[in-house]
């Protein structure tokens, strides 16, 4: 293999598994260390820079970082990254004076349609540059699905208000309570750019016999949740069936319970292992006593005297063909009849744009989805951008934020007449953490403690109250224990070939056998030649230049604990522990002169 080019920022960035996996590339280990030190405000600000909604995401994030977390490869469970974020938000000091305001007007006006997380992020990034950001939202308040669909027992309204207001207060121009019904008309208003952040507003339906006749008691899940959040629905039948296995289904069933249903049953067509809902959401529903029946495909809504009385299900079984493709086939067992008063259907959402005329240069593909650039988020009409669920269908908040950041960069480049493909580079620093002989600026002694569970509110109370938050969050003591579990993956092991005397000290001391000195070979072969063969090909090999004995140093990044023992054991300083700080470029900082790119924290 060729020697690793560590001057390419992606190499060390990939080692920071959580940050690499985070769509917004939040510098996770950096803020976790700050939490361990009780520096919650700084930890909050790092999050605010990257993901805009620390309090919201600290409760609701889909957390792609956690399955990626190295700790999950070294012991059983990843660091509770998401819940630590909440600790920073819950315990931070005053930050108002640290939040930038709208900059001196630059004469450009940008329309942001929909005030969900995607549009709010665009506003957050463009306001400091002096853009007039006009937020046009059908509802009376900002937040999008975070307000309408995520129930307040998971996300308290106060937290949502605080974090949406923080952006509005920077100086956005709201046009709330206004629905855009014609893109043409909006274009005529002469905005310099338009961002479509309207989400994926249409809940899917199921065409099953009896559906139409039973429509009084069959509700689309997302519509139901919105109606509950706007208090248009305040009660529900005693027996409720929820159809669907995603997160919406989990929110529907828990909401139904709190509206007074006696029995709630979730039914899923597919086997349980294939359910779309996050494992922790399933766990939360089951903890509240809600049964989840898998392999149940809805077959008929049964009515008596014109009123819904039950849903009939056919039992299914998954079969896989040679290519591993799944097919659901009926098992032939007798149908299952579940008596009920109301049905909630949570079988997916799609984006729809009846209000965008098809003759104004904004192209849609065969599936009626807009054609959007993967890098610049621009539609086929220059100056019109898409992001969040509106771009490629339902995702989650953190993806909406990541899209928002990129779209803001594009809008800024577009308004300044620059090439959209010349994206600003991230800022990175790589600094030795050595403080003395065997002393490091970070806690290099990995703790053995296991992942802590977040304490929950008393279910006897929580199940009766729609707005009582179920999770209580870690207290500072628990936060300290949990944050110490982080393996500091951003503290990189940096190797200098010219200093190494090949004494083997580092090989011998490494607790997880990361390091091997070996003759060089092609990657596939080299992976087999290591002290422990490197089977996890998602993780890179760090290969040195050729050493005096004609061998190379190969480090498998897979399970490195960043304990620094290699560097402590090295007599010549050929290994050093260096902190790699990676900050994604944002519109608000991208065009600042180099020396001012320093981040708030």
């Amino acid at each position: 293999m060729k020697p690793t080019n560590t001057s390419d920022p992606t190499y060390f960035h990939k080692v920071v598994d959580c940050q690499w996996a985070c769509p917004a590339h939040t510098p996770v280990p950096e803020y976790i260390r700050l939490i361990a030190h009780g520096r919650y405000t700084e930890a909050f600000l790092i999050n605010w820079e990257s993901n805009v909604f620390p309090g919201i995401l600290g409760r609701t994030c889909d957390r792609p970082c956690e399955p990626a977390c190295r700790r999950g490869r070294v012991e059983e469970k990843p660091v509770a990254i998401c819940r630590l974020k909440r600790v920073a938000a819950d315990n931070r000091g005053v930050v108002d004076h640290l939040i930038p305001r709208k900059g001196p007007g630059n004469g450009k006006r940008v329309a942001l349609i929909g005030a969900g997380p995607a549009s709010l992020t665009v506003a957050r990034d463009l306001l400091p540059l002096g853009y007039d950001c006009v937020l046009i939202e059908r509802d009376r308040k900002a937040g999008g699905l975070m307000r309408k669909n995520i129930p307040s027992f998971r996300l308290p309204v106060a937290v949502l208000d605080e974090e949406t207001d923080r952006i509005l207060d920077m100086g956005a121009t709201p046009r709330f309570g206004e629905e855009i019904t014609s893109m043409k008309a909006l274009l005529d208003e002469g905005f310099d750019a338009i961002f479509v952040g309207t989400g994926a507003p249409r809940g899917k339906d199921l065409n099953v016999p009896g559906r139409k006749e039973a429509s009084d008691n069959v509700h689309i899940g997302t519509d139901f949740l919105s109606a509950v959040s706007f208090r248009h629905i305040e009660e529900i039948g005693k027996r409720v069936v929820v159809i669907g296995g995603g997160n919406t289904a989990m929110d529907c069933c828990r909401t139904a319970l709190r509206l007074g249903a006696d029995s709630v049953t979730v039914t899923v067509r597919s086997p349980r292992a294939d359910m779309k809902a996050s494992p922790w959401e399933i766990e939360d529903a089951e903890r509240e006593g809600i049964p989840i029946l898998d392999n149940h495909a809805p077959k008929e809504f049964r009515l008596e005297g014109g009123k819904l009385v039950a849903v009939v299900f056919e039992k299914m079984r998954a079969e896989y063909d040679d290519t591993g493709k799944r097919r659901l086939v009926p098992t032939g067992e007798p149908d299952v009849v579940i008596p009920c008063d109301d049905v909630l259907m949570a079988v997916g959402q799609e984006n729809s744009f009846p209000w965008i005329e098809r003759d104004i240069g904004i192209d849609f593909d065969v599936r009626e989805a807009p054609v959007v650039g993967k890098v610049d988020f621009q539609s086929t009409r220059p100056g019109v951008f898409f992001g969040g669920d509106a771009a490629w269908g339902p995702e989650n908040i953190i993806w909406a934020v990541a899209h928002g950041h990129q779209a803001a960069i594009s809008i800024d480049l577009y308004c300044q007449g620059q090439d959209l493909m010349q994206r600003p580079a991230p800022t990175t620093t790589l600094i030795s953490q050595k403080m003395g002989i065997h002393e490091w600026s970070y806690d290099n002694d990995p703790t053995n403690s296991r992942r802590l569970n977040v304490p929950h509110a008393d279910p006897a109370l929580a199940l009766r109250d729609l707005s009582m938050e179920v999770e209580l969050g870690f207290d500072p003591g628990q936060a300290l224990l949990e944050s110490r579990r982080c393996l500091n993956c951003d503290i990189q092991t940096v190797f200098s070939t010219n200093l190494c005397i090949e004494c083997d000290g580092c090989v011998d001391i490494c607790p997880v056998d990361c390091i091997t000195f070996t003759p060089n070979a092609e990657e596939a072969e080299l992976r087999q030649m290591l002290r422990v063969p490197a089977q996890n090909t998602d993780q890179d090999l760090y290969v040195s230049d050729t050493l005096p004995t004609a061998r190379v140093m190969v480090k498998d990044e897979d399970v490195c604990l960043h304990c620094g023992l290699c560097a402590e054991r090295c007599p010549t300083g050929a290994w050093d522990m260096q902190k790699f700080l990676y900050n994604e470029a944002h519109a608000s900082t991208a065009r600042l002169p180099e020396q001012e790119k320093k981040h708030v924290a």
Partner: protein
Amino acid sequence: MTHIVKPQFRHPRLATNSQGLTRRDYEGVISTLCAGCGHDSVTAAIVEACFELELPAHRVAKMSGIGCSSKTTNYFLNYSHGFNSVHGRMPSVATGANLANRELTYLGVSGDGDTASIGIGQFVHAVRRRVNMLYICENNGTYGLTKGQFSATNDRASKNRKGLDTPFDSIDLCNMAIELGAGFVARSFSGDKAQLVPLIKAGIRYKGFALIDVISPCVTFNNHTTSTKSYEYVRDHNHMIGRLDLVETSAEIEADYAPGTSADVTLHDGSQMRFTKLDESYDPTNRETILPALERYRQRGEVATGLLYLDKREADLHELIGTPDQPLNEIDERALVPGSGPLAAINAAHR
């Protein structure tokens, strides 16, 4: 030395042996030696060898004297017996222990000071008596623990860190051991585990006195450019006379090799030693030719490494003096206290 305890985390796919143990289960406490010390590499090689031999750690006795090298018995085989003796006295303690319990595996670790200076009188007799043990001398040409005085194995040509010469010739422990009756004599380099690990395995399996003189650089006091025991010097002057492999069962011996370059030797316990010659002219089983050959390497300034001598007879102290088969702690009271009849007979024989 480091301030933290070595983390307990292991590689999730770390191999286990038939004892259900991983390599890390053969470790000891974290080393307090200087970073980069060759002795730590020897420790790692011992760990690797014991793991590969699948030794039950509780049936091993680690013996040592005083010195940085002698300290290292604390850094491997945490679950073994151990005796850290007075400076230079390990050979006698090991002899006594071995006589008392012949069933343990004896692993002695010493330094060039501990062995060739204060302990030389003890060392030669353990060799001569063919105590069944592997004796590893971690040879750095200096007294590391007492901060860098010349030791008796330091070469005439090798200056100390301040540039001073030694007026004395060096002792070559391997030559001496061959002459005194050691059955297995090898030299190796701490920086070459590929060579060292199989030598340690074979030395442990060998019945009789086995010596491995491991050149093990002292990074702090004897790794300078004018030293002949530095990493760089040993790498540049290393002359490998052969490669040794230990094959545990005969079923595995199938690899082909060029005729005349390889010889297999079956040890008393059935394991096979395969010796592959790298230097055609050198035959480690021929006592007559090896000493002159070693002298030639020395004169050329080469450090000959590998298995230098092997006595296939494998005779040990117990055999030579005809001791009972069991360890003393297993001999029952009746055998140990034969009663007044036999005592009277013994006494009569001395009248």
